[in-house]
């Protein structure tokens, strides 16, 4: 991951993008997948990164901005290394998600949009994760933790802080 002001895709990435563009009727369709690549490579979508994506695909910056701002999974701000996303929609709420979310915010000492001082965590409340049988559901960087509890989340946080794999 690099946070340089002049983000550039690697040669391999550019080749991957070239091949991907051919799979669609128009290069514009490749915008979302390429934004995901950029987010993976550079951590988040800074304005410079968005401009670079536009150049690579031959799109105007407004076309890129329109998409980045519409979709919640594209992040314009950096977040902690682990993004904890707690679903609080109906089925999770009926199974204690609000209490869990409150507990996690307190444990971490942060609210949405913030990063813990060690740079490890951010937290957010999200909409139905499509896994309601496992309510309450917490996504940790897109890995699903189902039937999450205050203690299972405490354990996860402790492990990450101790540098252990989760």
């Amino acid at each position: 991951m690099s946070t340089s002001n002049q983000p550039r895709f690697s040669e391999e990435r550019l080749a991957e993008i070239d091949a991907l563009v051919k799979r669609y009727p128009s290069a514009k369709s490749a915008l979302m997948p390429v934004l995901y690549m950029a987010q993976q490579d550079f951590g988040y979508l800074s304005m410079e990164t968005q401009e670079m994506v536009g150049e690579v695909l031959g799109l105007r910056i407004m076309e890129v901005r329109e998409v980045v701002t519409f979709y919640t999974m594209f992040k314009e701000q950096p977040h902690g290394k682990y993004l904890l996303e707690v679903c609080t929609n109906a089925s999770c709420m009926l199974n204690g998600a609000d209490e869990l979310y409150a507990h996690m915010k307190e444990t971490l000492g942060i609210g949405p949009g913030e990063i813990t001082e060690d740079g490890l965590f951010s937290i957010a409340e999200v909409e139905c994760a499509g896994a309601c049988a496992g309510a309450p559901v917490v996504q940790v960087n897109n890995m699903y933790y189902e039937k999450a509890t205050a203690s299972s989340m405490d354990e996860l946080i402790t492990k990450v802080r101790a540098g252990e794999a989760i």
Partner: protein
Amino acid sequence: MISSDPKKVTRICFDNIEVENMHKLEVAKKHGAYAFLPTVLKEFDTDKIIDEVKTSGLRGRGGAGFPTGLKWSFVPRNTGKPTYLLCNADEGEPGTFKDRDIMRFDPHLLIEGMIMAGFALGVKDAYIYVRGEFLHEYNVMCAAIDEAYAANLLGENILGTDFSMNLLMHRGAGAYVCGEETALIESLEGKSGRPRFKPPFPAVEGFYACPTVVNNVETIATIPAILEHGGAWHAAIGKPNNTGCKIFSVSGHVNKPGNYEVPMGTTLKDLVENYCGGLQHGDVPKVIIPGGSSTPWILGEHYDVPLTYDDIMKAGSFLGSGAIIILDETADLIAVTRRLAHFYAHESCGQCTPCREGTGWVERILNRLDAGKATEDDVKVLFDASTHMAGRTICALADGASAPTLSLLKFFPEDVQAKLVEKSS
């Protein structure tokens, strides 16, 4: 293996869901995957396939319940433009989590369905649009698609026939409205997911203005069984006009929430008590949300309702995606409604005023109500805003958004009254 005797069929899409490593081509083939595909590619044609699907009575599993064979028959032929097949795996409707299991446990079933549907419609490029959060499912699907390409089940001259088709996974990025088929098309074109006016319908002018079919994952995954066993076989499962099996995603206050596939017409009570381990509290649900959060509530008196499109409609709601949320006597209905209102306000794409403004008003008033700060006048505005949203917008998100609030006001006015204050503070 699915029985060729329709009376013995209890599951279709989930027939192999518990098979270990079913996501691997080798294992899937041992359990019958792609066995009937050569026959379809060599002996069937567009008309025969559409006829079988029409005869089957299959209705779309994505929410609207539109007959699949009829939808396919609307696609104009020989337009000189390509026809596209898009699979809707956006699965964002709160309470719905069935397509995820098909993708992560039996991806080849979906791929085989896509090949057959693509063949029927003369498709060269097909896409599966999967919600961004389903990264694991996306990866499982990509790996299965790679295996299918390597086995000449996708790509050029599939299994030595004249038919060639590509299939690509495409991730959404966290916008519920992209499950609406025209928003999905916009999104796949690399734009924000704002639904389009209809007509033109996608069948005529969809992806890049070309004829396009959008079908749900479960719909597509039902196609291989229909073609193998015949439309009449499928039509003999379930109930007339409500044929086949259906996956119900049951969540909320039940002891064993999960996906259960049963023949259409199974009663809700049977499903909850014999599959879902019963209710967490009490004998009868307080509220049943029968088809995802966008469907009107029905009450415990309908606990015995047969799970069909028609019976649920008679009970006052919709079968929708088959996502059943059960609320027992412990549920705080105002809090649930408030939470759902937040969801719709957050997910409105904003292009229709009644939806953009209405969802915002409804959320704000419900927040006040839940905090014990709303007045009688607020409730009037709540009712008006919800009523005026429904049926006056480009897409059906606004109808869905009004459902929880209107249900609350209709069935539990005394709960609402009990929370009011004389004058707002």
